[in-house]
């Protein structure tokens, strides 16, 4: 086939290049966020993430230590230290002490300070300020530096977002809440749907076709329909806005797809096995538990992945059915929206929190992709 169609090598190259372009387009947005989550707040806000991957020449503004740190050595006032706090220090190409002339000096030279005294700066960022009179003011002196910055990454954002007890973003707690929502909301509907799917696939009774049609119809009912009526119902029967309510809601919204997928799969199972065991005296319950369930594993796996991704990633259902004024039960998606609103500029927190919430679905996706694809195909290609 390929040698028939693809004998033109130019065409083959065009295919390779087009796919490469698509892949890059699809990957770059996520990559940007991932790279950003390993950069400091300063780095994120002063340069694009794509510059973090290679050594780049950048103009940065740094400050020396504050005047309160000055020492008196041989009757002169001295402030000294390193401009950059990081271990892998950038190499300074040129520097200056005024915003109009930011590259007046090369490393090793000494510059006169406007307020008196002088400063010298080495290529590795070590500075030495000296003056006859004490340095005044509450802030350090500004130093303009043109430096070649090597790529530098940090895990501090993750440490801060996940493990810092004083952390405002509370992502660790939200992670647990999401987990608490997602797991039961995945398991309960599978169990209930599997029995119903078996009945709809292998048991004879009047009205079966009508029921299947009913479920197909429910597949597309927008879940927005259910928000207010169910919230009212939950309040009336005392479930309130807790985890139980979210589990039930997710079960309800997931059931049509679960029954539909599982029924489509079970209908295709070999008839002989089931008929034979009926003749051998097995009850429907035994057939279901011992034959149908094990054989339906691929479909069960496919649906669990769908439902897990859906419940993990959901915002609307959690926002409506799960609310606790103390904020103990906020899920990660809701937390992210909150951060987008209140800390729109704090990309280091936002990027890291987003990645914490994305990483579990991505692991599930890459390890179980085979089942997911198979499930999609039973679900929609007919």
């Amino acid at each position: 086939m390929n040698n028939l169609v693809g004998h033109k090598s130019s065409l083959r190259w065009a295919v390779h290049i087009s796919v490469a372009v698509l892949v890059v387009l699809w990957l770059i947005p996520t990559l940007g966020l991932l790279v950003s989550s390993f950069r400091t707040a300063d780095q994120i806000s002063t340069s694009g993430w794509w510059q973090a991957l290679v050594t780049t020449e950048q103009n940065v503004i740094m400050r020396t230590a504050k005047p309160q740190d000055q020492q008196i050595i041989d009757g002169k006032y001295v402030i000294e230290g390193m401009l950059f706090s990081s271990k892998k220090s950038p190499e300074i190409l040129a520097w200056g002490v005024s915003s109009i002339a930011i590259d007046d000096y090369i490393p090793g030279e000494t510059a006169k300070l406007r307020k008196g005294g002088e400063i010298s700066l080495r290529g590795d960022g070590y500075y030495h300020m000296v003056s006859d009179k004490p340095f005044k003011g509450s802030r350090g002196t500004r130093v303009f530096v043109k430096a070649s910055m090597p790529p530098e990454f940090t895990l501090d954002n993750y440490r801060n977002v996940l493990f810092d007890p004083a952390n405002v973003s509370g992502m660790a707690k939200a992670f647990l809440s999401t987990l608490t929502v997602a797991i039961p909301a995945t398991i309960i509907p599978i169990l209930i749907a599997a029995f119903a799917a078996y009945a709809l696939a292998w048991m004879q009774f009047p009205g079966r076709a009508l029921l299947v049609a009913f479920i197909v119809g429910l597949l597309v009912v927008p879940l927005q329909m259910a928000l207010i009526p169910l919230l009212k119902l939950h309040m009336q029967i005392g479930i309130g806005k807790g985890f139980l309510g979210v589990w039930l809601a997710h079960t309800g919204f997931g059931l049509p797809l679960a029954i539909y997928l599982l029924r489509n799969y079970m209908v295709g199972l070999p008839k002989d096995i089931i008929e034979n065991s009926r003749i051998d005296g097995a009850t429907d319950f035994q057939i279901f538990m011992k034959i149908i369930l094990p054989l339906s594993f691929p479909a069960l796996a496919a649906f669990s992945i769908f439902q897990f991704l859906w419940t993990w990633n959901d915002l609307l259902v959690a926002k409506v059915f799960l609310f606790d004024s103390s904020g103990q039960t906020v899920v990660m998606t809701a937390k992210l929206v909150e951060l987008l609103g209140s800390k729109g500029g704090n990309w280091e927190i936002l990027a890291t929190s987003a990645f914490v919430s994305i990483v579990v679905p991505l692991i599930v996706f890459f390890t179980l992709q085979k089942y997911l694809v198979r499930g999609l195909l039973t679900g929609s290609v007919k």
Partner: protein
Amino acid sequence: MHPALQGLLTITSVVAVCLSYYYLSNWFLDNVFLPARGKYSNRNINLANQIRPWLFMFPALLILLVYLAYPVLETLRLSLTERHAYGDEWVGLANYAQMIKDQKFWEAVSNNMMWLAIVPALSTGFGLLAAHLTDRIGWGNAAKSIIFMPMAISFVGAAVIWKLVYDARPIDQDQIGLLNALYLFFGGDAPQTWITKPFWNNLLLMVVLIWIQTGFAMVILSAALRNIPEETIEAAILDGSNPWQLFFRIKVPQIKGTILVVWTTITITVLKVFDIVFAMTNGHWNTQVLANYMFDKLFRANDWGVGSASVMVLMLLVTPILVWNVNNARKESQ
């Protein structure tokens, strides 16, 4: 109690309750209620077999009725009533009339129409392109994984990802958003705050959903492309058709049905799109859509009447697809 522990307990107890319900109800049916012994054993077996399906389906049906069927009717009722402290008052179509006069509603409707016109078409188009191209190269499966990956990312996560792409900084600073960096690189005069620019911001929000849905379209269309009978393709090649003709005249017509399924599935997703708009603009700057309009009315304005009326509009829009799906399913089962 810790919620995680509570969750674990609930899972075990729910699974136990479910299994024992199915087991015990079966046992009861076969041994106590209609035992397969004695004078009526045959009649009992037949009766039991007629009841059993309903035992198997009862929990599922109960949940479907309470969680999906009842809300449709209740929402319809709410859309025709006004909430007062003393109770609900029947107001006929007043909520709908009020909604039609709301300019935000029309903004939402027209934006939704734009989403409907653009997102399913582009997602399906890119999906078809990706499916066709990746099937012909050695590293196609790896490429597919990458294009499919956004499916696993939440709408909110995607909103954060793309908000960084669209970020704008003042002109005297380095841009940290890729879009503005490219815009300036290719000769743009000043960085733009893209998500506050009407019209363009709508398109940029759509890009997020297209980015997510293309992988879905690709996976399904790629399976359909592989199912095309080889003979039709070989015959076309022998007859001298070029790759373009082969694709558009031979392959695409044979997977028309699947394209339609993909298109309608994405259409439904588009109609319900909420998270992306909610997280990125919250409907400001002319980006309102129906699902977010509804959320605004229901949970911010606390106006259940108009909120329910807007949900009914959403329901009305999916109804053609619902009818079409149900018809297809019935045709198949016959």
